[in-house]
């Protein structure tokens, strides 16, 4: 793992500018070009990219592989769905509809604060962050790491899934909380104008998260994270406490997943315990792996690419998606550990041209390529 990503890719300036122009063009043009169905899909993928940024932060930069990001994703989704449900039913002076099905007459206590929009906007990232911080602290404190951490996060995922799945009377269990029929500012959330606005919000938040994560991984804090990834005992012996750093970074990733989940929920129209299914959380990891871990743009790119591919393949050949996805996992891990963008930034494309005889090889000594690239770019 160390060898595959110590060499941080360093794209040339023009490539970066080109990528940015492309991203902005997509964000600006999409709402007026795409039909609302496709726009909605793209909006969902962009919101998933925020969760991917969080995973890149903890996995690509800190070396913590979490298979339980779905927990935080779903918590964010539930926060916003609870608010919307209450907001809609409060207008009629009643409890949300599903409570009546189970004969619940008074609102469970933890629903109360979600009447407030301000509280919801804070809770949708703070609650996941706190859960992540507590869980992370308890695990990191004991120096449980690597695969053990991954397994424990997967177990935690299952715990949360079972809990949410089984509690009909508290949060509507398996059925989840629909949001598309709820009302916000007098408009149905599932309606076209609201969805267009949500697309903009998603795009904006994605860019903000990208800047935020970039700010985190640059500078001294980011240096410590990378050092933890590459040699944790050594950073401990140097006098740093990795537990603090890992907990903070895991909490940040949790918060990002929460935001992502909230945006995804309002755009897909429902939040269900399926958001916490085991395959979905592992899928999130593969977005980052395919895009290129350790490169933030790679995480965004991977999330959008894989999900878009998934929706295309599922429309055409529903049966083949699992084969393709499985093969992707194996291929990326064995043949392309840096991911697509990582490979590209590391000069992979040029090397390919060189091999095909279309470009002249650069005359450098291998160690020159390694020197001076420790700095985090992108």
């Amino acid at each position: 793992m160390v060898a595959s990503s110590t060499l941080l890719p360093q794209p040339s300036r023009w490539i970066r500018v080109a990528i940015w122009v492309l991203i902005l063009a997509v964000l600006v043009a999409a709402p007026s070009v795409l039909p609302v169905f496709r726009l909605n899909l793209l909006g969902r993928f962009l919101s998933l990219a925020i969760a991917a940024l969080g995973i890149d932060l903890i996995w690509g930069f800190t070396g913590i592989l979490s298979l339980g990001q779905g927990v935080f994703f779903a918590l964010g989704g539930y926060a916003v769905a609870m608010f919307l449900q209450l907001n809609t039913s409060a207008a009629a002076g009643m409890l949300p509809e599903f409570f009546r099905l189970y004969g619940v007459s008074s609102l469970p206590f933890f629903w109360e604060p979600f009447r407030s929009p301000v509280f919801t906007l804070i809770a949708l990232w703070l609650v996941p962050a706190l859960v992540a911080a507590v869980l992370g602290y308890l695990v990191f404190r004991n120096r449980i790491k690597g695969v053990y951490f991954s397994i424990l996060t997967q177990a935690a995922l299952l715990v949360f899934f079972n809990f949410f799945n089984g509690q009909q009377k508290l949060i509507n269990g398996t059925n989840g909380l629909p949001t598309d029929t709820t009302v916000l500012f007098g408009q149905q959330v599932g309606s076209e104008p609201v969805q267009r606005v949500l697309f903009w919000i998603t795009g904006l938040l994605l860019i903000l998260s990208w800047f935020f994560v970039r700010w985190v991984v640059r500078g001294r804090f980011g240096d410590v994270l990378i050092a933890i990834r590459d040699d944790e005992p050594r950073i401990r012996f140097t006098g740093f406490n990795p537990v603090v750093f890992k907990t903070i970074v895991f909490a940040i990733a949790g918060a990002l997943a929460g935001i992502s989940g909230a945006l995804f929920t309002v755009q897909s129209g429902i939040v269900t315990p399926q958001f916490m299914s085991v395959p979905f959380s592992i899928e999130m990891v593969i977005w980052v792996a395919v895009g290129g871990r350790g490169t933030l743009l790679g995480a965004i790119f991977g999330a959008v690419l894989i999900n878009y591919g998934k929706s295309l393949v599922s429309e055409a050949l529903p049966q083949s998606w699992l084969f393709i996805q499985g093969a992707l996992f194996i291929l990326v891990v064995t043949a392309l550990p840096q991911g697509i963008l990582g490979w590209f930034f590391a000069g992979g494309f040029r090397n390919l041209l060189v091999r095909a005889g279309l470009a002249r090889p650069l005359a450098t000594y291998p160690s020159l390529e390694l020197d001076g690239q420790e700095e985090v770019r992108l």
Partner: protein
Amino acid sequence: MTLLFETLFNGLAIGSVLLIAALGLAIVFGLMGVINLAHGELIMLGAYTTYVVQLIFRLPFLAPFYDAYVLVALVAAFVVSGIVGVLLERTVIRRLYGSPLETLLATWGVSLILQQFVRSVPLASAAGLVLTLLLALLGPAVLPGQWLAGPRGRFTRAGVWAGAALVGVLAAASLGSLVPSLSRANPRNVDVTAPAWMRGSIELAGLTLPVPRLVIIVITVVAVLGITWFLARSVWGMRIRAVTQNRPMSDCLGIPTETVDVLTFGVGSGLAGVAGVAVSLLGSVGPNVGASYIVGCFMVVVLGGVGNLLGTVIASLAIGVMTDLIGAGRLLTAWPGMPPSIAAVVDFFATTSMAQVLIFSLIVVFLQFRPSGLFPQKGRLVEA
């Protein structure tokens, strides 16, 4: 008193399923440090093997031996899952030794492929494919060495593969024509019918003991004893342990470490197949049957401590008893007069899934005090 025995028996029954499912994982993870997320799918393959074997034993000329099909299924499942495991080790995992997180992702990919494979490939063809692999992998070991040496060796190997493929295709075709239901892809769940002697239950000291559960307990006990003997007493077991302790030194002393890797992984995967037979006796068999066990298996291994079979045994039995104790709400039965507030809490967790919630939380709490499980490995490594 009856309550105690009932809890113990149920706990033993739940725990033995967990144990047989986790046993292979404990070996692969404990001895090789490989996280195999496709372990659940190897269990699933074992369960499907049971199904196929059962259908074959329905055929007229094998019908008199129908009662014994479970024994044949045990062997067949071990071989099928073992072969797939060996193939997995040779093609994917071997490239990823030393990078456990990458192994984890790659094996997850394998598990997705296997799940979709049993959905969209007819079981008869799958059986033929496994037979081909078995013959092709065993072939070179059986043939005289001189045939494989030199320039002729390449032709011999190609011939072995061609022959194996031919046999596989023939087997698939004949199986498909003998048992028509196997010649079509079937994405739905299938049911394994237990032979007559395995249905019903035995009354013992006021307890009702379902026979399938007893059979699973017996299978588990035999498997645990067998694997313990294998690792502790046999020559290859000794080699496996040697490689686990010090790979370079074992290599220097002439132990074929690559063969040891294949063998360890093969045995671990084969045990997953045996677990599949047990699982198929409990409920219907589907592509996702293994996935539901995998997290529980990992919990057993983490709780028991890595590389320690005794820990695995104790951890799975403890989880089994706890599941029954909490999930069936037995505390309420044992202590009917408990205060309503406690009773409400006990009642809240008295379903199987909520019991899982509580038990996993308890395991995380437990790991706060014993981070490396019940029986930690002793060592002075900084990465311990």
